[in-house]
């Protein structure tokens, strides 16, 4: 029921949210009903005996894929599949944990003892949802390799063919999964795991690693493994309904590939390859390098898309402003230099006017200069005389003050007769009042004292 029900994944998700399955401790793989890694691998090895299970392949890797495929809101199905796979792994083959047997018993009906992690992913619904989500991710990363890596694509296609041959027609469910993957970018990463899916030893290792990188490498596996082969020449799938028609060009994809690995560019990130598993790395390494190279070559190609190298020489028109040529290029035409050489500072007016040069020529003696002055600088005319006379008043301003310290004041010497008496301060009223009061007090005390003495003498008598 859960297999055919597309909503089963959500149900499983809700159940897992309640149960919060714990991953097996690394030191105790088989404790608390968790299958050990060896057991999981053994179950995975036994899985191919059930027949070709192309849809299982995404299921194995779907959990990490969907978890990293995109935002949480968009990834409900993928998340459910991930949870499902987790629950699958949590189930031990021998059923040591009865608490988990109830929901899983429905799933194991088809396979009976099929407790392999991939058995759960035979459900076409959950993988279909995850694949559709993953397909969008792969679409964004398609142009990166597809634009400039035809060779890579050829290689990817070949790998996809191998994967398809091993898969069989069971991939039918899921439109998104049906879509061809022309780019082949995720192909290399996904094909290898898909081919080795039956004996997938890296699934547990990747999950055991639990790292986000391992999860990120999965989306490509899910999508490409289910993609039927499509001729690589058509990089942009023209078929209606294909998501590839809406693909963004390289401009949108290139920064995505360089973004966080959690995003959809995880498949294009070479760093995720080692985490994808032992078997997958062999198939992905050859393609991972061209992938990175493809991105670089994309950037290189972008630099050449501006203008052809020989285009500069083919321009036949001239840039002029007011019938003067504009300096449009570094290469200057000396013939036309006068057309635009009206800039300030192009010519040094006169070497003799350069600042810092000595004016007097060594060869010019004073006599020669004097004679030259007589001939040109001396004119016995009335105008010269008037000019000399006219500026007499103005020349007064040229009279410099006498030398000396400007801060020194010259004061007339003081004589005895001119000596001035010091200032005498006048009587202050307040001080006078104070003095009067003090004097009155003293006088009063004196009178009182004297009066007391007189009385004492009278009393003795």
């Amino acid at each position, binding site marked *: 029921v859960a297999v055919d029900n597309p909503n089963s994944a959500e149900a499983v998700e809700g159940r897992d949210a309640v149960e919060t399955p714990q991953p097996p401790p690394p030191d105790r793989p088989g404790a608390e009903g968790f299958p050990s890694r060896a057991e999981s691998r053994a179950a995975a090895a036994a899985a191919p005996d059930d027949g070709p299970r192309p849809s299982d392949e995404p299921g194995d890797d779907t959990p990490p894929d969907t978890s990293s495929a995109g935002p949480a809101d968009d990834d409900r199905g993928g998340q459910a599949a991930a949870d499902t796979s987790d629950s699958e792994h949590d189930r031990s083959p021998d059923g040591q944990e009865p608490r988990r047997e109830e929901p899983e018993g429905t799933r194991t009906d088809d396979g009976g003892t099929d407790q392999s992690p991939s058995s759960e992913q035979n459900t076409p619904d959950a993988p279909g949802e995850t694949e559709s989500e993953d397909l969008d991710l792969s679409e964004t990363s398609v142009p990166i390799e597809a634009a400039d890596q035809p060779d890579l694509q050829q290689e990817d296609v070949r790998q996809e063919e191998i994967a398809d041959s091993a898969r069989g027609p069971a991939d039918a469910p899921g439109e998104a999964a049906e879509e061809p993957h022309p780019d082949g970018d995720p192909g290399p990463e996904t094909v290898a795991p898909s081919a080795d899916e039956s004996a997938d030893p890296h699934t547990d290792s990747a999950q055991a690693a639990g790292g986000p990188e391992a999860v990120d490498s999965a989306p490509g596996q899910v999508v490409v493994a289910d993609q039927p082969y499509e001729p690589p020449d058509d990089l942009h799938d023209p078929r209606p309904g294909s998501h590839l028609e809406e693909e963004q060009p390289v401009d949108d994809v290139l920064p995505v590939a360089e973004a966080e690995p959690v995003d959809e560019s995880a498949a294009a990130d070479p760093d995720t390859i080692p985490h994808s598993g032992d078997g997958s790395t062999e198939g992905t390494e050859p393609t991972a390098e061209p992938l990175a190279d493809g991105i670089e070559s994309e950037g290189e190609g972008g630099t050449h898309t501006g203008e052809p190298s020989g285009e500069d020489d083919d321009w036949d028109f001239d840039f002029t402003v007011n019938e003067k040529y504009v300096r449009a290029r570094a290469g200057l035409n000396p013939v036309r230099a006068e057309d635009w050489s009206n800039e300030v500072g192009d010519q040094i007016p006169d070497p003799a006017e350069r600042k810092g040069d000595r004016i007097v020529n060594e060869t010019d003696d004073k006599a020669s200069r004097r004679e030259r002055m007589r001939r040109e600088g001396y004119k016995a005319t009335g105008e010269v005389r008037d000019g000399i006379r006219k500026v007499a008043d103005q020349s007064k301003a*040229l009279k410099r003050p006498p030398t000396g310290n400007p801060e020194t004041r010259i004061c007339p010497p003081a004589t005895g007769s001119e000596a001035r008496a010091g200032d005498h301060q006048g009587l202050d009223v307040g001080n006078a009042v104070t003095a009067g009061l003090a004097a009155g007090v003293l006088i009063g005390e004196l009178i009182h004292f004297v009066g007391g003495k007189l009385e004492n003498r009278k009393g003795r008598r």
Partner: protein
Amino acid sequence: MAIGDDQVATLRAHLAGEFEEYERRWEQLDKEAARTEYTALVAAAFFEAVDRRFAKDGTVADVIDFVGDVRSRSEELSDAIDPRIAERLIRHALGDGSIGDIGDETMGSTQMLLLVALIADEQLDDAGLDEFMTEVRAVADEWTE
């Protein structure tokens, strides 16, 4: 014609800043004689003063700075002195350039103002000023012969 003592005394009074003495002596001068002799004496004094100031290691920058300094001393001087003409006159005295296109009155007034400024900056005492006038007189005598 030799330069007269009255003319030398008049110019000396002017250069010494004794303007009352200068005015008094100027009124006593023969204006026709002053047209030839006094102008020669002023031109010779200007040449000697420029030679003392800039002939050794004077540069164009020094000339420009000097003219600017003189013009900055008062607004009347700034209006009376054309910096371009002043610089050309100084450089001409140093053997550079030509002053043929400068008017006579402008040349006479500018030479007089620059001369007073140069002597004022020299801060000559009486002996130094007398020595200077002696040299200038000799040059002027040569020019007026």
